[in-house]
Structures are given as C-alpha cells and as structure tokens.
C-alpha cells in the first residue's frame, strides 16, 4: 500500500514535524509499501535535502509565494491522492493541517481521526490512540482504510534528515492552483523578539488558567523576578489579554526548553505540552491531581498555587537577604 506523509514549510524552511510525519509513515510501512512525502511550498530545496527516508517526494512549488494557503494545499493534495490512490494519509496537527485533514475527509468520505499519538497496523486496518478532552482521555479507535490521520507533533521521532535522490522527486507546478485559489495570502508577520524571547530564556515561570484573574499575575511576576525567570502564560491567559502574545508557551506560541519551567495552575493541554515538555526541570503546581501537566513534570505539587507562591516568595526573599 501507499502512505502519504504530508509535510509543510514556509519561505525556504521546512517544519520540523514534517520529518515526524515521514517517520510515522515509515514505521507503518511493510515490504512492498511506498512512503510518499507530499510537500507544498515556495521551492523544494529544503524538502529534497531532508526527506531521504521517503521513497518518493512529490513537491508542489510556487516561486511567487512564501507559503501555500491550506485551501490550495488541500486542492493540490487531492489531485495527488486521485493519482496515487494511497491507503493512508498522515497530516500534521498544525494550523495548516487543521484545514487540510477534514477538508479531504469531507470530499473523499474517508474516515479521519485527529490528535493521534499512536498507530498500530494490522494488515489493512489500523488501531490508533487519539487524545480527547485536553489530553485527559485517550480514545482507542478502529479505522478502516483508506483513511486520514491527523498526528500530534512530538508523537513520533523525527526521521533522520538526508537528501532524496532526484530520480525519486516529482515536481508539480503549484502556480495555477495558487492563482485560482479562493484564499490569498497577503502577509506573513514574524514576531519581533527585541522585547522578550522565551525560546532563549533559561528560567520560565508560566501561569495557566488557575491563576484566576489578571491582578494575580503580578504575584507570579514577582516570584519570576526573584527566580531570575521570565513570566509566561498558557493560551487562555494570553487570550484573556493578561499577558502579551510573545509570552505564550505552546503550539500557537513559543516552543521553549529552559533549565527551569515552573508551571502554576497550568493543566497541561497537549498543545501546551508541545511547547515545553523538553524543559530540563519542570515543576508543576495544580490542585487537580489528574492534570496532564504532571505527566511531564519532574516535581509536582497539588497545593493551592497562591499559598505556594506566597510561601516560596517568602523563602526566596529570606534567602537573598542573608
């Protein structure tokens, strides 16, 4: 059977999770199977330099655009699916993947499982494990082929990057699809890190929904100052406007790897864990003992976060006064 691993990139870069999609497809493939990497972007240079683990690379490129909008990506992918008749299409859980996976599922009628962490293949059928309810429940699902799976970044190890033989690369001109597309990209804004760059911070104190209100953020900020840490927030905190967007950790924020990550009232939704689970030392405080953040924490505490912040601040103040 054929497996299509969907990959992404913008400008001249490829997204790191692209290599995870290829690795996932490779891990499911058996003798005689074919792993096809599908890429859509400005040019195929980075893709053909990295996707050597795939048996074939189909690259849809448009030199006029730094990014292919999901609507066009999905249309190009549909054409590839029509020609290649794959049994399985793996789509990353990303901004682009969110629009692509269900679009293809609706137009093909194929089953789709989202937020997939594990895949087991048994001949022509699959059993997959998907996350629900912010990672608090795992759903084991039976899927008939052909099917589409949307894969969580981080669920599979990255394939080793290496060049793919040009004979195994098929180029598609994406220009016509881009021109006739209904969704036009007009701008890409890359944040200005002059103010704060969490990705290089050595210590981070991150507040989640449990902080309760905007005024309480100052307590956490004071603690952060005492620890020489940057203050950061999970998505709900930033969505409420309590902290600026540049201080958001997670899928739609920054991916961080500090030496210390102190999570206060953060439940640890999969999207948050994606951004911080590789920190060297993770300390989590949450009154819910089943909060998924404890699955990645090195130390966990279930006390009230305000009591903890007060006690910890007192001790740090006393320590620095000596």
């Amino acid at each position, binding site marked *: 059977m054929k497996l299509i691993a969907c990959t992404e990139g913008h400008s001249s870069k490829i997204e790191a999770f692209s290599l995870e999609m290829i690795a996932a497809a490779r891990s499911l493939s058996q003798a005689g199977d074919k792993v096809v990497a599908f890429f859509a972007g400005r040019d195929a240079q980075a893709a053909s330099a990295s996707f050597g683990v795939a048996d074939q690379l189909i690259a849809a490129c448009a030199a006029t655009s730094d990014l292919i909008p999901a*609507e066009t990506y999905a249309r190009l992918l549909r054409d590839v699916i029509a020609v290649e008749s794959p049994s399985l299409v793996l789509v990353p859980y990303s901004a682009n993947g969110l629009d692509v996976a269900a679009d293809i599922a609706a137009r093909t009628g194929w089953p*789709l499982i989202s937020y997939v962490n594990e895949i087991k293949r048994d001949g022509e059928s699959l059993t997959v494990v998907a996350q629900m309810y912010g990672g608090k429940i795992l759903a084991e699902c039976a899927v008939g082929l052909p099917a589409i799976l949307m894969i969580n970044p981080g669920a599979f190890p990255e394939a080793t990057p290496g060049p793919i033989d040009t004979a195994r690369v098929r180029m598609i001109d994406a220009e016509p699809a881009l021109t006739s597309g209904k969704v036009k990209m007009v701008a890409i804004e*890359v944040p200005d890190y002059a103010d704060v760059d969490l990705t290089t911070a050595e210590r981070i104190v991150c507040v989640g929904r449990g902080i309760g209100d905007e005024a309480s953020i100052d307590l956490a900020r004071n603690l952060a100052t005492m620890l020489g840490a940057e203050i950061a927030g999970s998505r709900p905190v930033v969505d409420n406007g309590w902290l600026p967007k540049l201080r958001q950790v997670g899928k739609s924020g920054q991916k961080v790897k500090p030496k210390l990550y102190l999570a206060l009232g953060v439940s640890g939704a999969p999207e948050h864990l994606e951004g911080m689970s590789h920190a060297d030392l993770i300390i989590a405080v949450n009154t819910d003992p*089943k909060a998924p953040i*404890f699955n990645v924490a090195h130390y966990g505490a279930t006390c009230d976060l305000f009591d903890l912040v007060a006690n910890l601040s007192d001790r740090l103040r006393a*320590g620095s006064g000596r």
Partner: protein
Amino acid sequence: MNILVVLRMIPDSAGELQLAEDGRSIDREWLDFQLNDFDDHALEEAILLKEAGGAKVTAVAVGEGANRVLQMAAARGADEVVALQCEEDAMISSREIAASIAAMARAKSADLVLCGVQSSEDVFGQLAPYVGALLDWPHVSGANRIVANGAVLRVTQERGAGVAVTYELAAPAVLGVQTASKAPRYVSGSKLREASKTPIGRATPEPSGLERAADIITLRLPVQGGSGENLGGNAETVADRLVSILAAKGMARN
C-alpha cells in the same frame, strides 16, 4: 452580512472525567457542560463584526445547556438564536453535525459561518473545514482577527512561534476562530434577564452524509504521573522542598 455562529456545549475538561460503564464514552451524569472556549471567541468575533459593519448574527447551539448559552448569546448581541437538537448523552462529533450546520447556513443565506477552531470532542475532525468542504466555501482555521470590507474578508491566522499569516478571501466563507480580536465580553444580570425573553428556535439535525468508518473501541485514562516526584499538597513543605531543589541546581539560595 448574515453571520451564523456555532456554539457547542462540551464537558468541562478542567473537572474530573470518568469513564462510563460501556468503556466507550465518558460518564455524563454529573458533568458540568460549558460553552466550548473557542466557540465563545467565535461568538465574540461575530458580535464585533456586527458592531463594526452591521450584520445579522444567528447563533446555533448544540448540546446540554444549549438554551442557557443561547440566552447569553442574545444578551451579547445575537439577533436570532436556534437550538439544534442532538442525540442526548452523546459526544458532539463535528463530522456528524457538519451537514446540519451547512444546511442551516444555506437556509439562513449566511455569508459567514463562524465556529471555534476545535473542540475537545472533535476526534473525528474539526467543524470549520467539514462545513467549508460540504458547502464548497473557502475556510480558514486558527483565525484571531477578522476584518470585513463588504464581502471581502481579511483573516489573520495564528501559526506556531508567534508567526501570523493574513489571508484575503471573499464571502461566503467558513472560519474557525482561535481567538477573538477582543476578549469575550461580560454580560450583566439585567441584560441576561432581558434576553431570556428571546424566543429560541428549534432545528432538527440533517443526516450527516459522511460514513462513520471509524469507531471508538474504548476510552481510557492516560497512565498517570510519569516518573515525576509528588511533593504533596502542603504549600509550606512544598515551598521548603522547592527551595532545596532549586538551591541544589544553583537557582536559589537556601
């Protein structure tokens, strides 16, 4: 402009979730249901668009507590509110309800369908792309700013690492909202009481038209804890331990 905004009631995943006896669903008896957070932002964005350029906003709610949330939607500025009937005590599958939302979008001559980018129950896929594909309308997910200039929409999408991409597309369209341009507004008790008189329309679901072809065999709780050490629930002892842990790593003095 006619805007249809979808409001899904989902179990509060900050609360404790327990498995039902059949092992394939969660026990819904004592659960708190609340408006899907992203749908709350979609509603806010709909009202902001109405305030910015004039629009008729129809809110359609599905799930346990739909009436309550529709009154809230009316209090915040929705012009018409409709409850979509659904199977009781079942999760809300976006794949399943997409046909009903698409039919309603046509019936209401919607120019724009807004919903939250995702919900914690959409294991079978997300609503905005399903509805967009069924209607063959353009769709963009992860929207955090929508500006309408007549039928031309400018939509800014959040991507990872703080990268934001802005797209232009023409209505009719379907947008999956991540974050409203402003935080969802608070409504006063008096406004809520006033809005409680708003008649709630009823809609019956359309057959999904999409085969299931995938099924949940079993649900389980993730293995707890990993390898981390539990410091307990006493703030004073936890603080003492944390100071020693941090001091040992040279990150604090004890």
